[in-house]
């Protein structure tokens, strides 16, 4: 089966919101899917669904040809899928320091990824440094970190696994201009990496214009491709 992300006739409802209605799509390996849409339309749910974190009500989600809602998520890693996900908010392990949060997936899959303890520590520190986090905050628990720093720690954790499937939900929201630029640089590098399949949701015009990829709007359970030049959605900020 072809590499990439595939949704086949997926229907997914969360509460009273129909996120997707019999939607099929394919994002080839190295491709980018950028989703926009009004608040509450289900962008975050779509991201979780595409990443295989939640099961669709109907239809199938495949990553690299493997069912993404696999009963055992570690099987995906064993099959060569290195998945990274940055939530809009939260998702860090509350009782681990920023450094240990970043190191956690590396330690857990150390033998599959062929990493030693020294390499794990170095890589975790490097990724935190790449998003501008150094010094005392790397030893702080997520609850002690500001929203912006916690979000960047989540970014560092996503980078640490060297993903071939990267999912970002509103990646630059809540960041100051300088850090938003850092995040946009990282996203741009993923966009240009033929080994990374990138899926992201955002309503930020600056990020969308910077990425310069086709934009899909989520409306009434459907993904509709839009021409930014002529019909940019009103939900953009």
């Amino acid at each position, binding site marked *: 089966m072809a590499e990439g992300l595939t949704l086949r006739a997926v229907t997914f409802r969360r509460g009273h919101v129909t996120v997707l209605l019999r939607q099929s799509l394919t994002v080839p390996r190295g491709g980018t899917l950028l989703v926009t849409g009004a608040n509450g339309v289900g962008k975050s749910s779509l991201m*979780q669904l595409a*990443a295989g*974190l*939640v099961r669709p009500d109907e239809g199938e989600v495949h990553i690299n040809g493997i069912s993404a809602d696999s*009963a*055992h*998520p*570690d099987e*995906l*890693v*064993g099959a060569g*899928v*290195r*998945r*990274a*996900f940055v*939530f809009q*908010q*939260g*998702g*860090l*392990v*509350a009782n681990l320091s920023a450094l240990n949060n970043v190191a*956690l*997936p590396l*330690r*857990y*899959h*150390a*033998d*599959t990824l062929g990493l030693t303890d020294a390499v794990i520590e170095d890589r975790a520190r490097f990724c935190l440094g790449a998003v501008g986090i150094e010094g005392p905050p790397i030893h702080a628990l997520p609850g002690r970190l500001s929203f912006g720093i916690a979000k960047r720690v989540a970014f560092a*954790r996503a980078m640490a*696994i060297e993903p071939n499937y990267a*999912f970002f939900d509103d990646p630059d929201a809540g960041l100051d201009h300088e850090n938003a630029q850092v995040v946009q640089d990282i996203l741009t590098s993923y966009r240009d990496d033929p080994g990374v399949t990138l899926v992201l949701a955002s309503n930020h015009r600056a990020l969308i214009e910077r990425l310069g990829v086709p934009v899909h709007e989520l409306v009434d359970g459907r993904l509709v491709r839009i021409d930014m030049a002529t019909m940019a959605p009103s939900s953009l900020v």
Partner: protein
Amino acid sequence: MGPSIHNASPEERPPARGWLASLGHEGIETWHVWASAIGLMAFALTSAFSPGRAAARSVRKVTLAQIFFTGAQGLPFVTATALVLGATMMLQMRVAAPGLPGEIVGKFLVTVVLREFAPLATAIIVASRSGTAIATEIGNMQASLEILGLSSMGIDSRRFVVLPRLVAVVTSVVVLMVYFGLLALLGAFALAAVFGSPDLAAIRSGLAETLVMPDLFLFAGKGVGCGALVAVTCCHYGMQVKGSITEVPLMTGKAVIRAVLGCVLFNFAATLLYYSLVGTPAAQM
């Protein structure tokens, strides 16, 4: 314009359930909970055999931390409860039946304190202390997307979160139960020594006469069963938190009540099974 509020008329409201229907509804819900919890336990146990040495090492680390939290940190509370409970039992026996022979007192200590109180009291202590912590922690992890975050990193939460807590609670309940039993006996002996009766040698003789090899299996069975019930019920209810942190206290309360109820019922069933297989103390005499 003001808000439009529509209250259901009496005809639209669902009819109130009778006591029999309520009992049935509760029974069905309880069955669903146990079935789901047993499924969770099965997944967690089978996940122990998933590949990955590094993953196993991470899980072992979490398990040891949980054993420390549940077992070692629970020691002072178990110590105090067991000593006082043992002494209270002896006091009651002295007050209610002052001339009771030491052999009978020893027999009573085995049947009531060792076979019943030790497993049940330990399970209740662990449920109220660690069970609440487990349900709350997992509930918060669900609400703050930590569980989904783990899954996104290819970390199976049943292996990384549920399994360590299951192993830790079962291990802790078994060990603390033995410890509780010994300290409760110590408390009872201490009070008897203070009052000078019943005769300590006679109590020891009654104890030795009543304690039999199958007690080992009863102890192990009750410890493992109650420990598993507490762990899996609290993990299950923690996992039931869907999106809001306000669900956490509600689920924690449900978890502990059902865990304790489950332990009481399991304890009773195990005792019935034990005496049906081994015979009653009167029959053994």
